């Protein structure tokens, strides 16, 4: 029994490491063979989400995604960006919605720790399994912003001025739709996602995604 109590934490560590490590480890092999040249998911940087899971962007290959960049201390504009992302998400037919991923990436890794992101997600009641509030190192955050075409700059008060965009990415990570500015109509973006999902679902004789969920 004593032995077991010593072993248990070790086993758990391995188990957690395995679960966390699985997706980033598994995905690159697939990605390197097939990742689209124009994909935003090219970067091999590591990110952490609000559930403290470590992910690479390649993990998101295979399903469409709604993507925006924001930061938690931004009280006026960013909640609207998050709401706009959610408006697209909710405009997708309920039967398909669980196949949509939403990524909200922070500009501010100093303040937006995974715990702060979890609180943020909970506050807006958006801590759904397919929602990922992501933080990472400054260079990959800038790199992702460059890939998306998002501009931002930190001011001397610790706030960020930034452009306001919400993107729809196809299942390869290529931008297919951009909402420029706040409070834009979302019907077109949602319709694209629905059509795309319906098409790819009929193409898949075995609905792997459905099985996983």
């Amino acid at each position, binding site marked *: 029994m004593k032995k077991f109590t010593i072993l248990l934490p070790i086993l758990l560590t391995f188990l957690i490491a395995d679960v966390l490590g699985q997706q980033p480890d598994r995905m690159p092999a697939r990605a390197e063979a097939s990742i689209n040249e124009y994909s935003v998911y090219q970067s091999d940087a590591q990110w952490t989400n609000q559930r403290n899971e470590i992910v690479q962007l390649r993990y998101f290959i295979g399903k469409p995604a709604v993507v925006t960049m924001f930061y938690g201390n931004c009280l006026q504009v960013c909640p609207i960006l998050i709401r706009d992302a959610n408006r697209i998400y909710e405009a997708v037919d309920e039967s398909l919605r669980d196949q949509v991923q939403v990524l909200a990436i922070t500009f501010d890794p100093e303040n937006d720790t995974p715990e702060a992101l979890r609180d943020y997600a909970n506050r807006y009641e958006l801590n759904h399994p397919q929602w990922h509030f992501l933080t990472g190192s400054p*260079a990959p955050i800038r790199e992702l912003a460059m890939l998306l075409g998002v501009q931002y700059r930190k001011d001397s008060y610790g706030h960020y*001025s930034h452009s306001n965009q919400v993107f729809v990415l196809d299942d390869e990570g290529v931008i297919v739709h951009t909402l420029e500015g706040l409070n834009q109509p979302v019907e077109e973006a949602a319709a694209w996602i629905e059509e795309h999902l319906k098409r790819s679902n009929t193409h898949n004789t075995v609905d792997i995604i459905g099985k996983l969920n």
Partner: protein
Amino acid sequence: MKNRILHILTLAAALLLSARPSMAQEAVEIPGGSFHSILPEVEGKPLEVESFYMDVTAVTNSEFTEFLMENPRWRRSQIPAAFAGEGYLRHWQDDLTPGEESPADAPVTRVSWFAANAYCGWKGGRLPTLDEWEYSAQLMEFDTPAQSNAFASELMGWYSTVNTDNIRSVGSTGIVNKYGVRDQFGLIMEWVEDFEPPMGSDFQLNCGSMGRMQQAGNLYSYAASVRYMTRMSFTPQTTTGMIGFRCAYDAPLTRNLYSEPALREVLP
């Protein structure tokens, strides 16, 4: 067994030796301070910049080759379109040979922002921010106003006739700031971390905004406005023959870059 130890020792020695070239590049400390940016946060107020370290010279063709040896995915034949335009290292002989057109000690050009960003990360640093680069660029000392004016007009001459056919070695311009950073003018344009800062929706790249920028009224304002406009015309995939980069490092340094030159002087 003996063989195995020997093998490990050889490997260790090889690793140490291979680590050396990447340490050779010198960076100097730029003490924090403030300067009048042509894009101030508050109209008329100087911008504060914290201390940081910056490479003395731009990254050369030979240094960039080392990076490509270790990082195949950034080679010309392998880089994805998301990370660079078609001009990426186009003038090189092949993936790992800069060739005659690109001397080893000349700055590497035709590199995208993404490649520059990855290189600096590999070096343990990062790209300098727009403000850091500009702050360092105006840390020049002149004895008389006449000298500084002469320099400013020389600078404008250079910006209007950047020649990408014959880029000279790093360190060759003789232009150096007071902490030893070389060639911020006169050689190439350089990537910075945030080369396209967010502008208000009313901001237009036209003569009116150029005019407003010039009203900052300091020595470099006109040349600086040309630089800002040029940068804003880039995309992160841009790979023109005039664009290269240098790296910056947070202070205090996590790696012992700063003491390296001194160490080399002591050793025979």
